């Protein structure tokens, strides 16, 4: 993976020193809270419901074992012994004290990490396919491009005060595991007729209060033009984006209000102006970055021990069925480690588990770890022969839950258990759904389904693109949960449609259960997934299951 250059190292260290001084000045009264807030946010430090929260960047979700061990150390020394992986593949500590944050940032810098641009109206952490560099269906590893964008966008003088935050996601495979269409810019790798790599460039996606799917602004952008084209988009947005209304300030609204064609004209005009200026510097930089992402040497390994374990052990077989994905090297597999043990908090990981994951990655996974936007951890390169040992080690750490892609593999934002913006809780809903379907022993029979839960309209829990989306709101002084149906986060992206009136906190799990029962009754065999049944039949039968009394009233 990419290692810090001397420039990166000096830059991050300078930021730590700067922030230490800012904290000192705040504590001494030389800075007011109003003056200090933007400074702490620039370093990822929020003040939440119960405590400060530090959001640490994990660029394109890639971590190495020493970084994860350092996060474990930080969790134990300065926090409460755990961290929380987010839907933008970052990690959050929910309990740091302000006075300790400069030391935490220094400890992060020791392992090439920081919290810069994890907040504020700037280009945020660039996310990528969590199977990057390993997936069987990949055209190219998207991470070198993501790193190129990270370097270009870090402290970019023109784009440090955008109208609003700006999120970029990139996938190198036709299967979209990075939810590119929900981003301000989505990049999808393609090859042209001659086989040269490039990108389909999408713009104007976003969830939140006005969910929109990104549209294609350039069907094919040659690889060499990536940086100037992105800069042109940012420049057009920076000039045309609204600054009068925070809720209309994202690029999705700019594109919507101006129209895609007019926005494209602005971008292309700007692109024509700046293209020359890049003069190959970006290509040289990309070439040097690419060397850092050289794939690990993967030797041929006889997978016989894997097949023997499959035949021998039903629990291992269940894990293999759900938590493994095809690797480009046939003797290897991609392991998704579920952070969704039934009843656990989605995305939470204890310090002990961080160390166990670091050890496992080091011993059997070429020292590579990824964080997925679905709040799981990925071991991208594991020999099939080693899978029984990896599974045993994961099991010992409480990390062998065999539920990836199933109903308990739920995305949930921190919600009102932590977040000061939240209007309702998310985590207990996720926990209750997972526990309920385990008790029913229906999880494997239900098969692949995506439930995503947000605790407010900002949609950090991606509820709009869940097959079943749940949005927690406040209604009449109590928590109320609105259900959306038919959303999709993949290359077949769709925004879910609102099903009807909300449900009280104690009604939402039974409501989900009725939806799933309806699906089981309606599906065209076990091969037809929830979303496929929904697409075949539409929302009506699912609405009827959600609101049975209304149906009876209509019939009466």
């Amino acid at each position, binding site marked *: 993976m990419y290692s810090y250059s001397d420039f990166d190292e000096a830059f991050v260290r300078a930021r730590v020193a700067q922030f230490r001084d800012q904290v000192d000045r705040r504590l001494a009264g030389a800075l007011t809270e109003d003056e200090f807030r933007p400074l702490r946010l620039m370093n990822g430090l929020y003040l939440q419901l119960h*405590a400060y929260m530090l959001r640490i960047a994990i660029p394109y979700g890639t971590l190495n074992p020493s970084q994860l061990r350092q996060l474990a150390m930080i969790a134990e020394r300065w926090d409460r012994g*755990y961290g929380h992986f987010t839907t933008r593949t970052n990690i959050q500590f929910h309990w740091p004290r302000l006075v300790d944050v400069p030391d935490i940032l220094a400890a992060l810098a020791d392992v090439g990490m920081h919290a810069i641009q994890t907040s504020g109206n700037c280009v945020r952490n660039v996310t990528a396919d969590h199977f990057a560099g390993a997936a069987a269906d990949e055209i190219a590893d998207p991470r070198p491009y993501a790193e190129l964008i990270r370097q270009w966008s870090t402290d970019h003088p023109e784009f440090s005060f955008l109208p609003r935050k700006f999120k970029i996601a990139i996938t190198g495979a036709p299967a979209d595991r990075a939810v590119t269409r929900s981003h301000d810019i989505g990049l999808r790798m393609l090859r042209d007729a001659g086989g040269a790599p490039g990108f389909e460039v999408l713009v104007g996606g976003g969830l939140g209060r006005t969910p929109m799917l990104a549209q294609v602004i350039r069907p094919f952008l040659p690889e060499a033009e990536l940086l100037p084209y992105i800069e042109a988009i940012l420049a057009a947005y920076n000039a045309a984006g609204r600054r009068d209304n925070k809720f209309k300030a994202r690029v999705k609204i700019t594109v919507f209000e101006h129209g895609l064609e007019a926005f494209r004209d602005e971008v292309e005009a700007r692109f024509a102006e700046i293209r020359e200026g890049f003069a190959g510097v970006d290509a040289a930089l990309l070439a040097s970055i690419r060397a850092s992402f050289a794939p690990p040497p993967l030797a041929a390994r006889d997978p016989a021990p894997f097949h023997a374990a499959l035949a021998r052990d039903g629990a291992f077989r269940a894990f293999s069925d759900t938590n493994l994905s095809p690797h480009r090297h046939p003797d290897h597999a991609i392991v998704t480690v579920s952070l969704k043990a039934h009843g656990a908090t989605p995305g939470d990981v204890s310090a002990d588990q961080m160390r166990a994951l670091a050890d496992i990655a080091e011993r059997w996974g070429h020292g590579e770890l990824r964080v997925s936007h679905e709040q799981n951890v990925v071991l991208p390169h594991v020999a099939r022969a080693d899978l029984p040992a990896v599974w045993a080690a994961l099991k010992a750490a409480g990390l062998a839950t065999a539920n990836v892609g199933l109903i308990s593999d739920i995305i949930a934002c921190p919600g009102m258990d932590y977040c000061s913006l939240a209007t309702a809780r998310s985590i207990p809903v996720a926990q209750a759904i997972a526990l309920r379907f385990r008790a029913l022993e229906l999880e494997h029979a239900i098969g692949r389904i995506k439930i995503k839960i947000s605790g407010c309209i900002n949609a950090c829990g991606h509820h709009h693109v869940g097959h079943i989306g749940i949005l927690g709101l406040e209604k009449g002084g109590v928590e109320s949960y609105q259900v959306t149906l038919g959303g999709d986060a993949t290359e077949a992206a769709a925004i879910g449609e609102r099903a009807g009136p909300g449900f009280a906190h104690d009604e939402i799990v039974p409501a989900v259960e009725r939806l799933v029962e309806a699906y089981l009754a309606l599906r065209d065999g076990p091969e037809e997934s929830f979303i496929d049944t929904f697409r075949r039949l539409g929302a009506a039968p699912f609405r009827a299951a959600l609101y049975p009394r209304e149906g009876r009233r209509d019939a009466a």
Partner: protein
Amino acid sequence: MSRPFTPAVVTASDLRGGHVVWLAADDRWVRDIAAAELIEDEAHAALRLLHAQSQPLVVVGPYLAEARRGPHGPEPAHFREIFRSRGPTHLLPGPGPGPVQPAG
């Protein structure tokens, strides 16, 4: 006619630690809402909030939160404030609370 004043407590976040605090009648910042001052008079509430706002080196973002009289002292009225007074409602992973955060 204006709405009658709803009883309230003054609450904020501790500047250094970030934890939730409430203002007690004797001007201490306390970690337990039950020990806070329940304010039932609008003019007094405004004075107490001003007092809190005059301590930017101790607390961040003081505000009046609706509360009611309970058997052991003030109790939060809104569910957000209930969660705020009790901490996350789910079981935390890891060994439990980390470094003890001194009050005030």
